[in-house]
């Protein structure tokens, strides 16, 4: 199974998520992660969808079908090497009185993770990185008892010098204020 990252640029209107996900559902493709945000251009949303597939051809067909949605401006499918990508994870870790203290130096320097909230009996640690880096940290911190763990979807930009404007030069773009 290969990981593919699909970036979908759409007009920002109600119901687009539903229009996109129904194409995955029809083809019985599971979405591994999904993030949506407005882009640098006003009224344009960007969906970053990660899927795993054995067939590049299936992904190509999927990309072309997503492109058919009227509100979709452009769709790009990437392999991991084509993109710079990251995720963010939050760990709520138990620190009861008398327990082994957290090694903050290792957490900061080795794992590039930061405590963002202190409580008497627990802390919340934020870790950014790839999926693998996050799970490395997960394994490291696990002995301290993880009370809650949440990972965001992937965000990704392509390494190509081209931007959306290069693909759709005819559009009159307005920068997001």
């Amino acid at each position, binding site marked *: 199974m290969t990981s593919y990252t699909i970036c979908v640029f*759409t*007009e920002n209107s*109600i*119901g687009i998520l*539903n*229009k996109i996900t*129904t194409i995955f559902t*029809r083809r019985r493709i599971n979405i591994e992660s999904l993030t949506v945000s407005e882009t640098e251009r006003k009224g344009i949303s960007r969906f970053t969808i990660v899927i795993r597939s054995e067939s590049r*051809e299936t992904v*190509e*067909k999927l990309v*072309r*079908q997503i*492109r*058919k949605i*009227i*509100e*979709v*401006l452009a769709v790009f499918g990437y392999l991991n090497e084509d993109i710079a990508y990251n995720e963010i994870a939050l760990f709520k870790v138990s620190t009861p009185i008398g327990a082994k203290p957290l090694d903050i130096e290792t957490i900061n320097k080795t794992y590039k993770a930061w405590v963002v909230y202190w409580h008497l009996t627990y802390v919340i640690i934020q870790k950014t990185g790839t999926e693998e880096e996050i799970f490395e940290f997960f394994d490291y911190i696990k002995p301290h008892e993880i009370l809650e763990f949440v990972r965001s979807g992937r965000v990704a930009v392509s390494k190509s010098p081209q931007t959306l404007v290069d693909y*759709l030069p*005819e*559009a009159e773009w307005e920068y997001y204020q």
Partner: protein
Amino acid sequence: MGFNENQTATIQGSEPAVSVAKPELINGSHAVIQSLIAEGVKTIFGYPGGAIMPVYDAIYDYQDQINHILVRHEQGAAHAAEGFARISGEVGVCLVTSGPGATNLVTGIADAIIDSTPMVCIIGQVASHLLGTDAFQETDVMGITIPITKWNYQVTNADEIPEIIAKAFYIAKSGRPGPVLIDITKDAQQKLMTKPFVHKKTEKLLSYHPRLAPKDEQLAAAAKLINQAKRPFLFVGHGVQISGAEQELIRFIEKTDIPAASTLLGLSSIPVDHPNYVGWLGMHGNYGTNVLTNQCDLIIAVGMRFDDRVTGDLSRYAKQAKVVHIEIDPAEIDKIVKADAPVVGDAKKALELLLPLVNENNHEAWKAEFKKYDAIEDEKITQPELAPTTEKIKMAEVIRTLSDKTKGEAVIVADVGQHQMMTARYYQFKKPSSFITSGGLGTMGYALPASFGAKVGAPDREVVAMIGDGCFQMTIQELGTIAQSGLPVKIIILNNNFLGMVRQWQQLFHQKRYSFVELQNPDFITIAKGFGIDGHTCAKREDLHASLDKMLASDKPYLLEVLVEKEENVFPMVPTGACVADIRLE
């Protein structure tokens, strides 16, 4: 509502209102109708109900400009709009209420998307403050129709209406056509617009730009393959009719001398007597076209999508051939069959631009190969079907007799099943845009409503619906619409008292275990007469000519029931999962 004095509103292109200091504001419902008029709509197929009542109140004032045809079930409205669109090339319009009105349209919308039929469905919705509360007759029509519409949109503000309707028509008709659904909340229909009504046609959209003219390099690559091919074979799809490419296609095949076969929805785009026409493709298509698909060296597919009913087993489909795929929808390229030379664009434009790039050629010997198979098919199937020695009338002879009597120039609307396949086989189409049927979805009950829709779209042409006794009972209530509108469609029921195609499969693949396929039918003629439609039954071969003459001579709607052989099978046949070359003759 009683908001009737709206004639001062400006429609683009109409006479400016004289001496109106302050333009009167109209409500959302009047905006809907005025926008439809501005888009050139003359006929609406619809059914009123609670959530669409404000629009129905508005139509009352425009009866001189818009003809509203009251169907008997919303599915009928959808198929009628499809029939209208398929024959005229214009957008078919449906108007229905929320909840069950909308869900009853769903089959027709699904039919329209798979057969690329332009349609705009305007649906009433509960008032916006009730959305999501399970209000009376509320259903999530947006959610339901996402996978079966080209575009859908919910309007909650009257001011949006002209722009959204303009966009809907542009999307439905351009590129690969399809159905668009506009869900309008009742309050948006009732409220006054806050600005003067202006309807401006949509000419382009930021996120949607269908390609008309193919890229030069794609055309050049296609032309190269065409010029090199020794045994090229052209497939005529529905895209030829949609883009109006019939003349370009004929010029193309005449210059290159390439044999051409048609898909189900491509039928009538080439006259059957054209010397390069070699027949029909697919499961019940001709012997030669299927067998030689696996012996050609190049397929030129024009506006078609390689449906599984055309390809049979894909792993043994035309593996020896290169493929030029001319198609307006990029998502169809490589979807089923890998294209060596994809040509993304409008079929008419593509053929026009290809013509100067291809060489004049002579494929006499290659074309003659089709004739050898034709002779076998003729002897084993066609002749016994057309001149049977058995007592009961056969479907094929009804269809061929009708074909002769109408000179192959009628509009034929076929329902779904054996009679549909027989119609495709035995009606000899001589005129473009003459065959309407539910191809992709295979919707039983399609033909009766589609036939009166087609009659609205082509009032000067003879429209004949070919329907089986099973299909007829799925939308039989539309006889009421035909009677009330007076549209003179001719209806032929080929009655074998069976769900014939399912019975055929049960005979061939389920050891004749006839599971729920025999019908106890009503007296169709009495039913028609109850609706005020004249008709009669033909039971004997010697009455067939006179029966068809009587039906065709009528200037009113007419129902002819023909009692046909009960257990007839459609052959040739490529059974599901078989290879096209293994087509069965018996």
